[in-house]
Structure formats: structure tokens, C-alpha cells
């Protein structure tokens, strides 16, 4: 687990569901095939309505045509991020596109659990309406130990909720690594 995550932010609103994160027609690619799995990066966040894609302006592609990785490695969103389907392809798609941290006001339960147990990135929660404080393309720095995010573009700093119970699983790298470390599986 990194101590500092720095990069460009992509801003989304409330209730971003997993169909928007990775549309169902793309759930067919192999995750173990190194070439095929890139498709998940290519279509990450491709079903977000254009006007809501990259707030506040909208109409900003998360991944450019023909690319598999995003120029944005931090996502900032409102409440209930990842609602809907249990498809683990959703957090995987964000991971393949290069996301290192998501900061949301709240998460849907299964999505949060998948993010943690797969160890795909750090899912932070915050009590602040950060999606109104950041603009897509701003540069941010997350200090993981201090549970804080700074908008380097505006110079303002914000508090994040501590990772809490799940920090042990995230720092181990996921549920399997954690279970081995704690003797639950051999």
C-alpha cells in the first residue's frame, strides 16, 4: 500500500452504478489473458451519460479512444458509488484503467467489499462534498497515513475517513493475502 497517491482526478456525481462503470456487454473478456483483460480498461466508465462524465463540465472521456489506461488515477464521486450489479469486473476495470484511489461520500456494499477483498485500489470515504470541490483534471495528493487529500490545483486540503477495519486487508493486498497472513487459510 502506497503512503502517497498523486495524480489527476476524474470527478463523478451520485449513484454511479456498475453498469455505468462497465456495461454488461463487455463482461465476456477473460481476466487472465493479458491482452484481452485490457478491454476492461478500455471500456471503464464508458456508460456514464456524457453530461455527467468528468464534472463539472461533462463530456470528458475517462479513457480516450484506442487507449486502455486513463490519464486519471484518482476518482472523486458522490454517494452510493458502485451501486447495482455485483460484477467484480467493475472495480477490476477501474484498476486496469490505472485507478489507484477512489474517494466517495459512500459506497454500495458489494462494490466496496469487492474493492477491498480484491485489493484493487484504496476506497476512501469522506463526509465532505468533494465532488463539488474538485474539477476533473485537477491534480490531487492523497496522504494515506494522514487520511487527507489535497487539491494541488487550488491548494485546499480535505479530511478523509480512516480506512478502519479494512485497512489490514488492503495493506495485505486483498482477502487471500490477509487470510494467509492471519492463518485463516494456508
Amino acid at each position, binding site marked *: 500500500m502506497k503512503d502517497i497517491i498523486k495524480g489527476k482526478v476524474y470527478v463523478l456525481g451520485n449513484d454511479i452504478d456498475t*453498469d455505468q462503470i462497465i*456495461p*454488461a456487454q463487455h463482461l465476456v473478456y477473460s*481476466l487472465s489473458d493479458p491482452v484481452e483483460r485490457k478491454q476492461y480498461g478500455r471500456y471503464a466508465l464508458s*456508460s456514464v*451519460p456524457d453530461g455527467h462524465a468528468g464534472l463539472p463540465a461533462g463530456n470528458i472521456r475517462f479513457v480516450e479512444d484506442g487507449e486502455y489506461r486513463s490519464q486519471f488515477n484518482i476518482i472523486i464521486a458522490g454517494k452510493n458509488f458502485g451501486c447495482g450489479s455485483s*460484477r467484480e*469486473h467493475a472495480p477490476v476495470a477501474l484498476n486496469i484503467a490505472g485507478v489507484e484511489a477512489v474517494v466517495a461520500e459512500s459506497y*454500495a456494499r458489494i462494490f466496496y467489499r469487492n474493492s477491498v477483498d480484491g485489493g484493487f485500489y484504496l476506497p476512501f470515504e469522506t463526509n465532505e462534498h468533494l465532488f463539488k470541490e474538485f474539477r476533473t483534471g485537477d491534480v490531487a495528493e492523497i496522504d494515506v497515513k494522514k487520511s487527507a487529500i489535497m487539491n494541488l490545483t487550488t491548494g485546499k486540503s480535505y479530511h478523509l475517513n480512516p480506512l478502519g*477495519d479494512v485497512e489490514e486487508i488492503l495493506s495485505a493486498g486483498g482477502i487471500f493475502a490477509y487470510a494467509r497472513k492471519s492463518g485463516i487459510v494456508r
Partner: protein
Amino acid sequence: MGMTLTEKILAKHAGRGHVSPGDNVWIDVDLLMTHDVCGPGTIEIFKKEFGAGARVWDREKVVIIPDHYIFTQDAYAKRNIDILREFVIEQGIKYFYDAGSPDYKGVCHVALAEEGHTRPGEVLFGTDSHTCTAGAFGEFATGIGNTDAAFIMGTGRLWVKVPPTMKFVFDGEVPPYLMAKDLILHIIGDIGVDGATYKAMEFAGDGISMLSVEERMTLCNMAIEAGGKNGIIAPDDKTIRFVSERSKRKIEAVYGDNDARYESVKRYNLKGLEPVVAKPHSPDNKAVVSEVKGTRIDRCYIGSCTGGKVEDFRAAAKILRGHSVKVDTFVVPATTEVEKRLKEELIDGESIYSILENAGAKIAGGPSCAACLGGPPDTFGRTDGNEVCLSTTNRNFPGRMGSKQSQVYLASPLTVAASALRGVITDPREFL
């Protein structure tokens, strides 16, 4: 302090006398279900983590039901079912309902119930968010991702945080113009799509006792649409009868304590409720039908785990009988069993199947999830433009049924059937 039904099931499976909301516990799993979309990824992680020669923890407790991408020419989708087949043979999995074989069933949540895999007091996990459907049988059932499913495959266990329980009580009798879909859309509209996040939703009251087992499944199915961890209904005679007709195993029903603590109790008087829709693009975007009647629609869709059961088609057929639909109406029976019963069950001497057919509905060639979640471009009923669709399914997110430009309204089969006859959103009371 007593425990709710959900707490008691979790305590029993954790080997503890008592659990409280917020406790993290490791529980023993009775059944793991997976399908063609998430099965291959789960198998991959299982092999990576437990070794190429690993065996599943119990070959009779892993149930595999391909149902999502069945009637498609998509090569990747076909390959995913091949991966399931190989795994089933390698592991000696007992319950596999293979596509293209006489064992094929269709939509996993309905098939699980029909085949006797949903039992009171048990713990069921599935790699599908609508696994919560099985809470209708008085069990703890919830959706998980591939990593968690792979963990269960190898160990038969998983950690869970015990959820607090929200109780929803329906007083009075269910009037003929309301269905379980109306009840759950009312709840979701009231508490929002994250109103029950991390929580158990328990449904009770005289109205719930009146509902058939299938209707109870519709109710629990959409607990996830309010963010719920599980939906649950205490078992009664109807539950026990349904399960004992399909499963030979001894039923060990669990009931909540009288002094259980609920996080909240919300009561509904059924007499005061009206038919309702969820407007685009969120299941909590509630409007009573009278507010939106006359809204033009391009197509109707009756199908899925929540809206493609016999009772759903029976309700639609009551309205469609002897009339013709004005807009394309796609019909997708959830399972082969549903399809068979539609051909057998008669309303005034005519089978439900032929009533639907004679009304001009387009009936799918076979049961599957079909366009409920869009799917590959050749999926039956998939939206591909700016269609306005009125559907008995459970989600109307942007792009959910295929096209990002289409708009989906959710409603009961009664409301969908009435609207299909007019080509605009219509109150089913006009036909009842």
C-alpha cells in the same frame, strides 16, 4: 436482547449464541451459486489462490447456472460457458444446469428456487447481486464478487459484518391492482437507492402473508436496489410447502425473536397504496401511475428474475387476453419450468402462452436474463437507440438495457400489460 431473523441465521452459522449488528463474523456457507458471467473469473481466482489441482470444498454445495448470455453468437460468451463445463467435469459438481442440454433452466435466482436449492434458515451466497431473491424463503442470501466466491469455493466460509435490520410491515389485504413490484418500488422510492445500504430488509405483516412465494421473491429481489445486504421474510406454511415439494433435505426453519431489536420499523397500509413506476434512470425515481399516465412508450418488456415468473405472466395475461398490444412487447420466461407452465396453465380455456402470443407479444426462443441487462448486441429485446421501454425488470440505470440513450421505466406486470395495450403508461385499474 433477542435477535432478528437475519441475526439468528448468522449467529447459528458462526457457531455463536448471539451476534449483534456491526459484529464481524466468519460464517459457514450452505450454498454457493455462480453463473456464466462471473463463474469463469471466480474459477480463475480459485485456481490461482488454491492451486491448479485444488478441489472445491463441497461438490454438492456449488451450484452453477448459466443464464446471462445464452442465445447469442458472441464467441467470448460461448467460451465462458465452455469454461464452466470443463470445471464441472473436473470437480464433479453435482448441480450444473448446462445451456443447450435438457438440464438447462434459465435465470439462476428462479431456477435455484424451483430446483429446491433455497431453504429456510440457510446461508446462500451468489456471484450476482440479485441473490437476495432467496431471502423470500427465510434464509440469509446475498450477492458477492468473484474474489469472495473463490474464497468460499476453497474454504466453505466467508466473513460478514452483521447488518442491522430495517423492518417493513404491510397491513391489510393486497388489492387486485397491486403486485409485489408496486410494494418494493414504493419502499425504494421512500428510502432511496442507498436507503438500506449495509442493512437487512425484513418484510412482514398480513399483506406479506397473503403474497405467493413467487411474489415474495419479487420483493426480496429488489432489496439490493435500496442498497440492502439482504431481503428476508419469515418462513410460513407457504414457504415450507414450496420447499418440501422440491427438496428432500430436512428443513430447519429459523424465526426472529419477539424481543428482537430493529433499527427501524416502517408500516404501509395497503389500502392507501397505488400502482407505481420508477422513472428513468433510477429505481428510486418513484411516481404513482396516475402522475405519469399518458407517457408515450415505444416498447414493453416482461421478463427477468424479478418479473418473468409464472405469476408475472398470469397477471399480464389477465389484462392482455382478447386484446392486441400497440407497441412491441417482449416476453422472456425466466426458466424452462416457467415456459412449460405458461403452456399448461389455462385462463378461461386458453393457455397463458397463447394469450400472450395472440395479443401480439414477441416471445423469446428460450429463457435467459436476455435484455434485462443489455448484453451482447444480438440479445433479444435489447434497446439500441433512444427507445422508451416500460419493463418488469429491476434496474433502469443509464444503458442498463443496452443503449445509453434509451429510457427505462419499471413497473408491475399488470401496469406493463395495460400500457402495452394503449402504447402509453396506463393504470391497470382501467382493465380490472
